[in-house]
Every structure is written in structure tokens, then in C-alpha cells.
């Protein structure tokens, strides 16, 4: 019997989403301290990451300069592989961004309170990942300063976008997504910015956060509208995030190219995006948790749940791959069948098998409970998925394009040094922005954490059950 009780206590400790002993004040102080610390006291690891990010930024600057002055011929993509690194990375980055929206919106609607300690950072990740994603199609136009041509506006050429094209849908989807993500993130930040305004000692710092907080003063009537707005944003972001990656999948599936045209693409792309995004969240949060000692807020429970999400979404993408293989044969279309053979045994077959290894095989480790709570296993699997989801897009885009219907038009693709430098550059941009965020904005939502403190004994309307119902 005592064994049983011991079990239960262990279970409780493992399930805690916030370590015991915290009060409203300690949460506020601990999190705002990270931001309000003088620059010289920032952990060394932060400076190191910023350094790497800055080098990447320089690389990005150099690549874009070269690209704009020379043209996109510096990249390796050419007929028949007209899309390559630019679109692979576009899809890769935007997929990563989706986990942020998922964590902040869908998990909010599902009343998963464990999300609170990671949602702010995940949303920031979304913004920066979408920025990285957006760079690719803009630069791929070759004349990014004319990118506004993508939008429907009355012009002297008398031309309008062609709305039957998934690429135009993409313009709408991605720009809406970027706008809504930014609004959602900023809205979520307002009360915390007010906290920083109130906590800051230095006048300039106070002014900086004061302007950003827009005069937020924690009034109940404001909180009421604020929470309603947050819930509505969560409610509409959920279908939005599904639509964005579905539209990305339409870029491929609405065409007729074997390897692109298959009906299961939308849900399987969405699952892949969540898969990639959660992997990136883990990749970023594990070192941050260690560097800033956030074990009280990002507990084993969080790691366990994220590992389970990785396992589940990994199985969904595996389901997608399996159906593609089956249907390529079942369809009886010689082109589909050849696509399959080429994917499995052609010149790029190694990317497919590496994808199966990294995306389908390695995440199976998470069936084993202790692996879900072991940070090294978590880091290993999340890196594997980061690579795997990149390979997935490589397989879909390059392998399908390089040999299509007409053998006379077959070709080969190899990335150039500029392809790699651009990719490394966006990673640098991402790291730079993310660590800048960690330094100047609270990476954990303080006001939401306050709602989780058991001693406060009060709740907001994140739960409908707690709201108004007959249950009081």
C-alpha cells in the first residue's frame, strides 16, 4: 500500500507543470529578471549563440547582396528542377513556425495548461520562422523589390493575380498567417510588457517597455476583453494554421506531377509541420532550460508531452509515406509507378532512406517512457526530426522534379555554395532573432503562469467549465 502511495507521489511530481513553492511574486521576479538583468550578467551561452547568429546574419547579408546583384542563377536550381533549396527551405521554415501557433492556439482551446510555460517562446519561434520562410519566395522572384506585384492592386499594367493558382493562395495564406501570428504574439505580450515597465529600474528601459505596453494597467474590464480577444484569436488561428500548410501542400498537390499530386497531402503536410515544429521547440527549449535554470517551469511533464506529440505526428507522416507508396502502385499509372521506383532506387534514393530513418524510425524511441524524459534522447530525436523534415521536402521537390513525364527533359540537381550559404544565413537570422527575443522580452508568459499558481486559487476563462456554467 505504501508502495502505491509512493507511486502516486512520484506521479504527482512528474505531472507538475510548475514546481511547488512558487508564488505570484517569485514567478514574476524570476522571469522578469532574465530580461532586466544588466547586459554583462547575461549567461555566456547567450553570447555564444548570439555570436553564431551574428555570423549567420552576415552570411545572409552577403548572400542576398550577391543574389540581388547577380540574379538567382547563383543557385543550383534550373530546368527541370526549377524549385529546390528555395522552396525546400520555405516549406521547412514555415512548417517549423506552425508548432508555435499550435501550442498557443490549439492547446489553449484544449485547456492544456502545460503549454503556458512554452507558448511565448514557441510563438516567437513562429514569427522568426515565418520571416525566414518569407525570404525565400521573395528572393526567388529575382526582383524582391517588385514583390508587391504578388498582391491584387490596380496597376498601370492592367493585370491582376490569377486566383486559380495555388501560388496566389499561398500569398494570401502566408501573409495572413504572418499578420495574425504577429498580432497574437504582441497581444499576448502586452500584460507582461506592463510588468516589465513596472519592474524596470532604469528610466530608458521603463520608457521602452512603457511605450510597448501601451498603458496597460491590469484593469478587470480590460482583462475581460483581453481574454475574449485571446480566445477568439486562438479559435481562428487553429483553422488558419491548418489552412496555411494545406495551402503549401496545394502548391504541389494541385499540379499533376507524380510525387506531388496526391490527395492526402493537406493533412499529412499539417502533421509534418507540427512534427517539425515540436522538434524545433525541443531543440531550442532544452538548452534554454539548462542555461537559465528553468526546470521549475519547463518540467519533465512538458518534455514527456512534447515527446508524445512528436511520436504521434511522426506516425501520421509515416502513414502518409506508406499511402503514397501503396497508391503509386495501386493507381496503375506508369508515371506514378516510375516516380516511386525513382524515389526508392534513383540517384536521390539515399535522401528517401535517410528520411525514413530520421522521420519514421528514430522517433519510435519515444514508445519507451524513460526516453521521453531523458534530455539527451529528446535532443537526439528532435535533431533527427529537424533533419528528417528537411529531407522530406527535398524528396518531394527535387526527386519528383528531376525526372518527370518526358525522359528527354530529365536532369540532375545539385545545390551550389550560395544555396548552402543562404540556408545557413536564415538559420543565423533565426538564432539571432530568437536570442534577441530571449534577452529583451519575457520568454515565459508571466501573467499566464500566475494563473497556474495553486495558491492564487482563482482562474480566468480559459476554461469554459469555470465560466458561468451551472457548475458553480
Amino acid at each position, binding site marked *: 500500500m505504501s508502495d502505491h502511495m509512493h507511486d502516486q507521489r512520484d506521479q504527482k511530481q512528474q505531472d507538475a507543470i510548475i514546481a511547488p513553492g512558487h508564488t505570484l511574486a517569485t514567478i514574476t521576479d524570476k522571469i522578469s529578471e532574465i530580461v532586466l538583468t544588466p547586459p554583462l550578467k547575461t549567461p555566456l551561452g547567450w553570447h555564444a549563440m548570439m555570436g553564431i547568429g551574428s555570423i549567420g546574419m552576415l552570411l545572409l547579408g552577403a548572400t542576398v547582396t550577391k543574389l540581388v546583384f547577380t540574379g538567382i542563377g547563383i543557385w543550383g536550381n534550373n530546368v527541370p528542377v526549377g524549385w529546390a533549396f528555395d522552396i525546400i527551405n520555405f516549406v521547412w521554415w514555415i512548417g517549423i513556425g506552425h508548432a508555435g501557433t499550435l501550442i498557443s492556439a490549439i492547446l489553449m482551446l484544449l485547456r492544456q495548461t502545460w503549454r503556458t510555460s512554452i507558448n511565448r517562446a514557441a510563438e516567437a519561434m513562429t514569427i522568426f520562422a515565418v520571416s525566414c520562410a518569407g525570404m525565400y519566395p521573395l528572393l526567388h522572384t529575382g526582383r524582391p523589390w517588385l514583390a508587391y506585384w504578388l498582391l491584387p492592386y490596380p496597376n498601370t499594367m492592367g493585370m491582376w493575380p490569377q486566383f486559380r493558382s495555388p501560388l496566389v493562395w499561398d500569398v494570401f495564406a502566408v501573409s495572413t498567417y504572418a499578420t495574425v501570428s504577429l498580432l497574437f504574439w504582441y497581444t499576448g505580450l502586452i500584460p507582461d510588457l506592463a*510588468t516589465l515597465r513596472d519592474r524596470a529600474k532604469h528610466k530608458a528601459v521603463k520608457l521602452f517597455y512603457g511605450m510597448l505596453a501601451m498603458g496597460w494597467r491590469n484593469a478587470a474590464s480590460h*482583462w475581460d476583453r*483581453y481574454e475574449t480577444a485571446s480566445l477568439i*484569436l486562438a479559435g481562428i488561428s487553429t483553422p488558419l494554421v491548418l489552412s496555411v500548410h494545406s495551402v503549401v501542400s496545394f502548391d504541389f498537390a494541385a499540379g499533376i506531377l507524380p510525387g506531388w499530386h496526391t490527395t492526402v497531402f493537406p493533412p499529412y503536410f499539417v502533421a509534418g509541420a507540427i512534427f517539425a515544429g515540436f522538434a524545433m521547440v525541443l531543440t531550442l527549449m532544452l538548452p534554454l532550460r539548462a542555461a537559465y535554470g528553468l526546470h521549475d517551469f519547463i518540467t519533465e511533464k512538458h518534455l514527456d508531452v512534447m515527446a508524445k506529440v512528436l511520436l504521434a505526428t511522426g506516425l501520421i507522416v509515416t502513414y502518409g509515406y506508406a499511402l503514397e507508396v501503396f497508391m503509386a502502385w495501386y493507381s496503375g499509372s506508369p508515371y506514378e509507378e516510375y516516380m516511386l521506383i525513382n524515389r526508392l532506387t534513383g540517384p536521390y534514393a539515399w535522401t528517401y532512406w535517410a528520411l525514413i530513418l530520421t522521420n519514421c524510425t528514430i522517433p519510435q524511441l519515444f514508445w519507451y517512457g524513460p526516453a521521453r524524459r531523458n534530455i539527451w534522447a529528446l535532443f537526439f530525436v528532435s535533431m533527427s526530426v529537424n533533419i528528417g523534415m528537411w529531407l522530406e521536402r527535398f524528396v518531394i521537390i527535387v526527386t519528383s522534379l528531376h525526372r518527370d513525364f518526358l525522359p528527354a527533359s530529365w536532369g540532375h540537381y545539385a545545390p551550389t555554395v550560395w544555396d548552402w550559404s543562404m540556408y545557413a544565413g536564415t538559420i543565423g537570422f533565426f538564432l539571432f532573432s530568437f536570442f534577441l527575443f530571449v534577452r529583451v522580452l519575457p520568454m515565459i508568459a508571466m501573467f499566464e503562469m500566475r494563473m497556474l499558481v495553486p495558491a492564487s486559487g482563482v482562474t480566468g476563462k480559459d476554461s469554459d467549465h469555470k465560466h458561468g456554467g451551472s457548475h458553480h
Partner: protein
Amino acid sequence: MAHHDHKHPLHGILAEFDRPEPLIEACKAARAAGFTKIEAFSPMPIHGVIEALGLKNRLPLMVLCGGIAGAAVGFGLQYWVSVLEYPINIGGRPYLSWPAFIVPMFETTILFAALTAVFGMLALNGLPRPHHPLFGVERFSEASRDRFFFLIESEDPQFDKAREFLASCHPTAIEEVPN
């Protein structure tokens, strides 16, 4: 909170609490006592307070209207462009290719609804408003950390009874808020 020609020297009187429960009680008692210009402040949303103050908000309706407007704009734009202004034959598909139009229409619906939600919330809250008399009270900065406040504004018809009432709520402190 509106501006007045004859300014009362005080914006209001503020009571401070160290726990949320007495704040909820204060809200209920104040409404029962007939105070109308009241407001509560807390480091996080507290449902009990919002309920005790009997707040209503129009935001959901505004967002619904925003969303419908977005859908109309999205479809209208595509119809006008693809059918009226710039009809071109794309692979034999009809000018009015509604299956394709659903996607951008969906996105504009979401966009308009989200913009309405955020800017509607800010407008209804009267933000941005960088300065406010409450910021003059030094203790008020704790409202964003772990303290709870209850305010009776000077505009309240029963303001003369405010101090007495607040004292009866067992606050940890009472302060005047200069205008």
C-alpha cells in the same frame, strides 16, 4: 475615465489587497452598495472579479461582423477580378472558379476577424493610453506583480461614501489617486 471641464482633485480612491478573494468580495459589495464607477486591478485575469463586476463585452459580435466582411471582400475581390475585370481562360476552367476562390476567401475571413479582435479589444479598452492618473500611485506598480487593487472613481455619484466603504473591505492599504 473621460476628461472633464471641472476636474475633481482626485481620480479616485484605491484599496489594496494581498489576495484575490477580498477583492472579489469588494467588487460584489460595491455593486450591492450602488457604486457604479468602479474598477478592479489584478496581475492576472480573475474570473470571479469579472463576474462580480457584471461586465459585458461586445467583442465577439464585432469579430463575427469582421469575419463576414472579410469573406465578402475576399469573394468580391476574386469575382470582380476573375469574372468582370480581367477574365482569362486558365486551362478551360470557368471564370467563376469557386472551388479555387474558397481558399483566399477563407484567408481574408480570418485576417479581418483577427484584425477586428485585436484592434477592437484595444479600442474598447481605450488603449494605447501611455499616461493615466493611476500610474502616479507608486504602489500601483505592484498590480502587475502580486497585489490586487480596487478603485472607486471620483465620478461616482456616491464618491463621498467611498472611503468609508473601502475601509470596510479590510484592505491592506487605502490610497488617494490624484488626478
